[in-house]
Every structure is written in structure tokens, then in C-alpha cells.
């Protein structure tokens, strides 16, 4: 899979660009989505907690790989969303899952020797989608591209934000209730 920084930046780019069109996607929800983008990377628990040791303890086959699937993302997102105040839970689940699915889809574009990505839509289906084999995970150019695009989106977003604030002040002065809090 791509490194965690690439995952987090990819979610930032997708959600921030979407927020330019959809007012309900505020920066605080972009941040929640970025955390969701890290959920598939929980599979790296396997580096610390050996799968074989877990199997010997449980007495059944076990894999952390299920965390890097649609089912794993949805369940972990649900668990994390319970840490939010009740008013925010539904939206927290939605943005955590959106972030996680963005990361899974990005991983679905990487190189597989047989031309098919892993079954990341499990448990909905075991189908392995075809992959365009765009990158290998150790290629630093992937991270460089993510940093460049993330930097451009950050700069454009800041610029839009600065332009929007005076307009909101003018609206407030003229008695219109502006949509604030971005």
C-alpha cells in the first residue's frame, strides 16, 4: 500500500477540492476524513503484533489484512465515531469511511504482478478489480506528487478563504446571515 502520508494527503486533496463546491464539507470534516484515510494503514499493526503469535493464541487462521478492506474501514470508522459527541457521529462515520475508501481506491491503482488489485471490497465481494498498475509503494515519486498536489490545493484553498472572508463581513454588515465557521 501507499505510505500513510500519501494516503492522508490524497484524502486532504479530494475533500478540500470537494469543499469548494459543497459548503457542508468544512475543514473540520476534512480533518476527520484525513484520519479515516489512515484506517487501512492499521494493517501495519502486523509489524508490531506478529500474525503467527495471534494465530497460536486464538487457534485459528488470522490476518490483519482485513483492516485494509471496506468492511474493516466501516467497522473501525464506527468505533472511532463513537468517540464523537452524538451531534457529530453520523457525519463522523461518513467522513471516516470516505477517507478510508479513498485510501483503498488509491491502493487499488498500484502494481500487482497479475494485473488485479486485492479484494479490498471484502466482505461485499471477493472480486479483485483490475489495476492500471500505476505505481509501486516504494517509489518516492508517488509521495513527491502527493506533496506537490497537496501544496497546490492548500495554497488555492487559503486564497479562496481570504477572498471569502471580506465578502462574509460585507454580507453580515448588510444584514444577511453569512455561512460562517469555515
Amino acid at each position, binding site marked *: 500500500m501507499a505510505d500513510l502520508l500519501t494516503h492522508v494527503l490524497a484524502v486532504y486533496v479530494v475533500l478540500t477540492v470537494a469543499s469548494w463546491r459543497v459548503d457542508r464539507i468544512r475543514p473540520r470534516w476534512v480533518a476527520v476524513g484525513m484520519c479515516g484515510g489512515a484506517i487501512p494503514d492499521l494493517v501495519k499493526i502486523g509489524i508490531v503484533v506478529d500474525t503467527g503469535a495471534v494465530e497460536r493464541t486464538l487457534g485459528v*487462521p488470522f490476518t490483519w489484512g*482485513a483492516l485494509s478492506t471496506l468492511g474493516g474501514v466501516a467497522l473501525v470508522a464506527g*468505533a472511532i465515531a463513537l468517540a464523537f459527541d452524538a451531534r457529530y457521529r453520523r457525519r463522523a462515520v461518513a467522513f471516516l469511511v470516505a477517507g478510508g475508501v479513498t485510501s483503498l481506491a488509491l491502493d487499488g491503482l498500484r502494481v500487482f504482478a*497479475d494485473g488485479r488489485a486485492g479484494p479490498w471490497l471484502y466482505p461485499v465481494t471477493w472480486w479483485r478489480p483490475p489495476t492500471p498498475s500505476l505505481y509501486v509503494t516504494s517509489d518516492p515519486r508517488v509521495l513527491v506528487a502527493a506533496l506537490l498536489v497537496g501544496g497546490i490545493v492548500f495554497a488555492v484553498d487559503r486564497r479562496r478563504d481570504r477572498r471569502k472572508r471580506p465578502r462574509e463581513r460585507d454580507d453580515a454588515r448588510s444584514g444577511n446571515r453569512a455561512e460562517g465557521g469555515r
Partner: protein
Amino acid sequence: MHPLVRLAAVVALLGLVAALCVHYPATAPGHSPYPETEALAVDYDAHVGEEMLLFGTVERVDANADRATIRVDSSEGAFEVTVRGFAERVAPGGFVQVHGTLRAGQVVDASTVAVVNPDGGSNGYKYAASAVGALLALAAFFRHWRVDGESLAFEVRPDG
């Protein structure tokens, strides 16, 4: 919702995650076109002639003969296979995917070899980038959210 009820719900969801981690390897073999690596570790010869996708660490490379020996790890133990048709530049310690046909004598005729890590040092770069990614996500989150002491839940910061 009372914090204890929330805690119980979190434990229940994490229990389902654990169930998923058990269900996945129990059902995967029936949905894969390839034999499991565990099955190869136990009885390689039973699968000679079959197509396989292997993930392994490069042990030795014989560039003149387009061959390499890779170590495949499985929960039934690690085993080595010799890959024929291996023209990639990979140092020992690198990680590759091999798609090909299993032949007698722990040999694989590769149709495609994909280099995941060209050498053992590639992992260090990925871990460092991942650590920065985790810090970035946490910093972005706590820029907008805080833990409310009364409800023991995440609440939007006044300026968030």
C-alpha cells in the same frame, strides 16, 4: 448515550473487527484462483503446474541466468523458490511479486515480476513517511477538535 454504553459499543465493534480478521483467511482460499502460500509451505509438490502469485524477499540474484531465489513467508513457515525469467534489478533484501507457473523442484517460471522494494532499505523510507502522515492527520484533527471533559467525547473547538 452514557460513556459506559459507548465503551461497550466500541468493544462490540472491535470484536466484529477481530471476527473479520478471522473470517477473511478462513474464506479467502475458496475465492482465490491461486493456492495459499501456507499450502505451498506444507506440500509444494501437490501444486506443481498451477498458476501462482507469490510475494517474497529476494535472497540471491543470478543476473547472468535471469534467475533469483526468493523467500516466501507464511504462517506455516518460510520456504524458498527459484524464479526463472527474473530480469529485474533487485538487491538481496528487496521485495517482489512473482506471477507464474509452479514447476517441480521449488521453481517458478515467471510470466511477470513486479518489484515492490528494490532493496531492504526501502522499508525505512516508507515507515518514516508513514510516521509523518500520522502526525499530520493528528495535527489537522486536533486543530479543529478537542476532548470535552464532561461528555468524554470529541467536540468542535470554538475556532474550529
